[in-house]
């Protein structure tokens, strides 16, 4: 499981911040990032896209015989996570006991240590996911709704104004 430092370095954006891409032509989201949309091909309009980090368990397994470097974590959960925006990714699920995981469970991204090369080697960090607890979910849903309604207001204010400059509404997200 030794992976080049340069490779890790190039993948920092997706690994640290869940940054992928989306196709402006069809609206599909890609994680890890793709440079070409497999549907639109030459018509693809690839843009950088930061995923919200919310999603749910699509499927999972519990790893009991772990590969080198992960032995001390076994048993641990590896899941295919369906991200809210549509893409899927494979990740470890933390803060959850193997007997508590279920398909469809709401998740959020969390930033964790993944593996250390050796005692003096580099430490690799990256995304993992954890169950989204109900209270936090409510609060963050409300925040998202608030943000959405306030931008809607802003948009409608703008619309009621003279002209509405046609710009793609890629509103900056608060928090993350």
């Amino acid at each position, binding site marked *: 499981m030794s992976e080049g430092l340069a490779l890790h370095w190039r993948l920092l954006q997706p690994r640290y911040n869940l940054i992928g891409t989306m196709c402006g032509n069809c609206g599909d989201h890609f994680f890890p990032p793709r440079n070409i949309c497999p549907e639109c091909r030459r018509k693809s309009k690839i843009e950088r896209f930061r995923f919200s980090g919310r999603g749910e368990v699509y499927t999972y397994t519990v790893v009991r*015989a772990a590969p080198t470097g992960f032995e001390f974590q076994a048993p641990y959960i590896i899941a295919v996570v369906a991200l809210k925006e549509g893409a899927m990714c494979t990740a470890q699920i933390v803060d959850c006991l193997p007997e508590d995981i279920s398909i469809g469970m709401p998740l959020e991204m969390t930033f964790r240590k993944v593996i250390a090369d050796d005692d003096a080697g580099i430490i690799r960090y990256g995304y993992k996911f954890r169950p989204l607890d109900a209270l936090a979910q409510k609060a963050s849903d409300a925040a998202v709704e608030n943000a959405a309604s306030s931008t809607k207001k802003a948009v409608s204010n703008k619309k009621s104004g003279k002209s509405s400059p046609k710009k793609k509404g890629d509103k900056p997200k608060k928090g993350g």
Partner: protein
Amino acid sequence: MAMVASKNHTNGTLNPNAQFQRPFTVEQVMASTPVADPLKLLDCSPITDGAAVVILASEKKARELCEKPVWINASTQSSDTLALHDRKSLSRTEASIKAAKKAYSMSGSAPKDIDFAEVHDCFTIAELMAIESLGFCPMGGAGKFTEDGETALSGSKPINTSGGLKAKGHPVGATGIAQAIEAVLQIRGEAGKRQIEGARTGLTHNVGGSGASCVIHVLSDEVRP
């Protein structure tokens, strides 16, 4: 899945070249060490050292050199995304389905014409998905097909008569050729105790990268189509 392991280990006892030549019961498979749910140790193919070789020749040369040449009637390949999370469905292996379709059309045959098959049972679930992809049973029907004994040596569609990757072993680079060798032995009637009576057409199905690429061959005792 445990029945797949048990069946392939039983076939392995009849293959003097198999890595494991001892039988395992379904209960023993179920009771083996868990690896990654729901796979147990005995659902997984082993790490194997091994070598395999076949000699390829033109039709003319083959007839000249060999009393019982076995003919390659189809050789096809297909691919899919490497990452499981990029696939549209986790319960279908598109690469195998496409390669199988091409192989049947290239050899002018259908699943019912195949007397036996060596499929890539790197894990027991892979054999179930393979026999569905190859059209031996309906999608989702592999479990019942196996339970009914159809894939056993005495069944209507013997699968992995050699013991498969599970029991014969999985020396990765040599695995595909080893499958072809089993097919040749069966077609020539030289498979010893595990010989299927009247085996004339066999199929080999080899997979790489969790189903990301699949290669299928149809071998037979006559040149077709």
